[in-house]
């Protein structure tokens, strides 16, 4: 063998060793759940794997577990925590290593992650496509969803939409505010945006009445929560789980866990769930092209 060949071979070997020595490892922790919800975490994990260069370890969290003990078992430098149980692990680790949280409607609160809250721009763009007559959007928010309002306002303005944002801090205030909305005029030009908010989009008290009144008044309601389309909203945002996984993988590579404030991103890509009965009631008729873009339609 000639010396030059030997040198090239040696360099390649060294490079390979270096690469192997510094290969990244990541742990993804997520809840152990039954079907069909387990598919969501599988899709997210698939997305993470496709984006992350390195070894991805999985940890399934049972319903009852000790967060401290579980977090101590995680030896990788990077952690992606999914769901509510994942968040408990994230809270143990985020100060010591890079941790991002996903599959939760998080807001900036010290831990980085990708919120389930869809990018308002995408929502408004969809609104424009599906209900072009709407010119004003009303959104009630509480401290849980306050963080997105500023961005939403900018994005709405950019699209020529008026965003009426009403702050409330309890259910009663939300109810009163919503009631007042329905007493207003030009409801056919207005849409109600239901953010991922436990007060302003309360499943038990608010949503049933809002959807009912919206039906009666032929008002558009769209939501950031996937299940609302099934219940009667015109459309709601569905996360693309694989793309969410990729987004999480990119984020974990880029965050500096030591810096403050944390980085919380909105969903960059969404899928649409559309209620065609509501659409018909509101007078919207979507052609096959448009329908082909809907990930889910209701009724089934």
């Amino acid at each position, binding site marked *: 063998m000639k010396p030059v060949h030997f040198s090239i071979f040696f360099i390649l070997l060294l490079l390979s060793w270096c690469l192997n020595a510094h290969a990244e490892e990541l742990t993804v922790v997520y809840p152990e759940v039954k079907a069909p919800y387990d598919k969501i975490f599988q899709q997210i994990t698939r997305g993470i794997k496709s984006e992350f260069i390195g070894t991805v370890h999985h940890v399934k969290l049972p319903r009852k577990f000790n967060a401290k003990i579980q977090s101590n078992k995680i030896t990788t430098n990077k952690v992606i925590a999914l769901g509510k149980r994942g968040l408990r692990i994230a809270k143990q680790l985020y100060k010591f290593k890079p941790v991002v949280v996903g599959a939760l409607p998080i807001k900036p609160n010290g831990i980085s992650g990708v919120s389930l809250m869809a990018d308002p721009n995408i929502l408004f763009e969809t609104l424009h496509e599906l209900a072009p007559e709407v010119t004003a959007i009303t959104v009630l928010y509480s401290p849980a969803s306050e963080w997105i309002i500023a961005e939403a306002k900018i994005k709405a303005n950019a699209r020529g939409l008026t965003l009426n944002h009403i702050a409330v801090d309890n259910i*009663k205030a939300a109810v009163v505010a919503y009631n007042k909305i329905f007493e207003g005029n030009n409801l056919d030009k207005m849409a109600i945006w239901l953010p991922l908010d436990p007060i302003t989009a309360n499943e038990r008290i608010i949503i049933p009445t809002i959807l009912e009144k919206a039906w009666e008044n032929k008002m558009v309601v769209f939501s950031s929560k996937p299940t609302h389309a099934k219940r009667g909203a015109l459309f709601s945002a569905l996360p693309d789980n694989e793309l969410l996984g990729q987004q999480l993988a990119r984020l974990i590579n880029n965050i500096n866990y030591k810096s403050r404030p944390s980085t919380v991103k909105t969903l960059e890509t969404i899928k649409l769930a559309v209620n065609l009965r509501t659409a018909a009631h509101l007078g919207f008729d979507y052609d096959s092209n448009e329908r082909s873009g809907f990930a889910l339609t209701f009724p089934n």
Partner: protein
Amino acid sequence: MSWNFLQNSNKSIKNQVIHFMIISITLMTIIISIVTTLGVNQQYRELMLKNAFQITEGLAKQVIFSVLSGSEQNAQEAMNQVLGFQSVLAARLLLDNHRNFLVMGNYPADIKGDTLKIITTRVIRETSEYWLIKTPINESTQSSPSEEDEFELETEVEEERIIGYAEVIYSKDKLSDAQTQVTTLITLVGVISVGLLSIVLRWGLLKLFKPLGMLASIMQQSRNTGEYLLAKISGAKEIQDIASSYNNMMTVLKQQEYDLITHRDQLEAEVGIRTKELVLARDSALISSQHKSEFMANMSHELRTPIQSIIGYGELVIEELELEGNFALIDDMDKISKNSQRLLNMINNLLDLAKIEAGKLNILQSDIFIEELVINLFDTIGPLAQKNHNNFKINPKCTLIKIINDKEKLEQLLLNLLSNACKFTEKGKITLSIYNDVNFIYFEINDTGIGLSKEQQHYIFDEFRQVDSSHSRKFSGTGLGLAISQRFVELMKGQITVKSELNKGATFTVKLPINLIL
């Protein structure tokens, strides 16, 4: 009543069982019907209450928004929905301070506003016509936990805040109707069941008990007719066993009867033969006895006649010898005379005995004067007693003057007994006591002579038996005196007894009826 009936042995077991079963089934059906009715009615009531609770709670959930917003209009649709239920008479929404928020329907006037604070759905008031159900309207943001919660952030658990109350007046009409229907149906079913069961039971039991009845009938018939009737073997196993045992018993009895009849016939035949033999023997004995008696009578007469001649001629010779003074020959002649007299007495006794055995001795009833009898006896026995230096006494303690009986025989037997007493007593006492009671007269002869042993007392009344029958006996006699005396007493419908101890004398008692009735 049923227990007395069960113990009534006049009723057949079949009827008793049928009655008992019917009564039991009826009681059981009644109890089951009552329990079922109560249970069903209770369940229906609980179901209706549950339904009412659900309606009220549903209303409370639907009107949260309306109560929170303070808008009655919002609540009206929910209220209308609730009033759409047939059983809901009225509904009312109250604020948390119990002020009316919205009232719809016919709220009963007698219900005054209550301010009862509750935390769960309850029946506030119950009448025969309705329930008043009240439930809190909770401002709870918590929904039921699910797997979807994994995609929600943890929220602070808020205390459930009661923002008002929902009341519903729920009518009991349906409940009453349903309960009446259930009760009627169950009663009807019960009655029909009892009826059908009774019919089936009766039919079944009649069939079951029929073989037993037939068996009892055969037994009855057998008892009445005395025949050994066999029963048909049929029916349940136990009845078949009884019938089989009964048939065996009848067969055995029949065989036993046959054996008895055969044996009886045999015995009768033998008895007939024996009777014939006995009759022959009796006749032969009677003839023999008669012959004997006739012979005795003839012989006694043939014997007595020459003896009497001897005695007569002997007395003549004695008289002549006395006249001649030939006293040596008088003693010899005296001996001849005495022995002849003895022989004559013996012949007379034999004759009497023969007559008695031949049945030819009759009783001649006549008046017997006690005083006269006593004198005769004293005159006759007095000298006889003196021969052995005995003291003879008569104690007439009798209250009677006379009796009616055979005088000759009475004198003969008393003389016989007294002469025996004189013969067997030396230097002693001989006493004749005569006493009486209402129906009988008693002649008691007591002596202080040699007495009799127990063994001797058994045979002294036998013929030809004497107390000393050896060849060298001391006392003379034929052994017929007491036998004849006993026969005489028996003929006179009396009784003769003896009490004695050896060497301590003897007491012979003759008991005779005062008035002999033949």
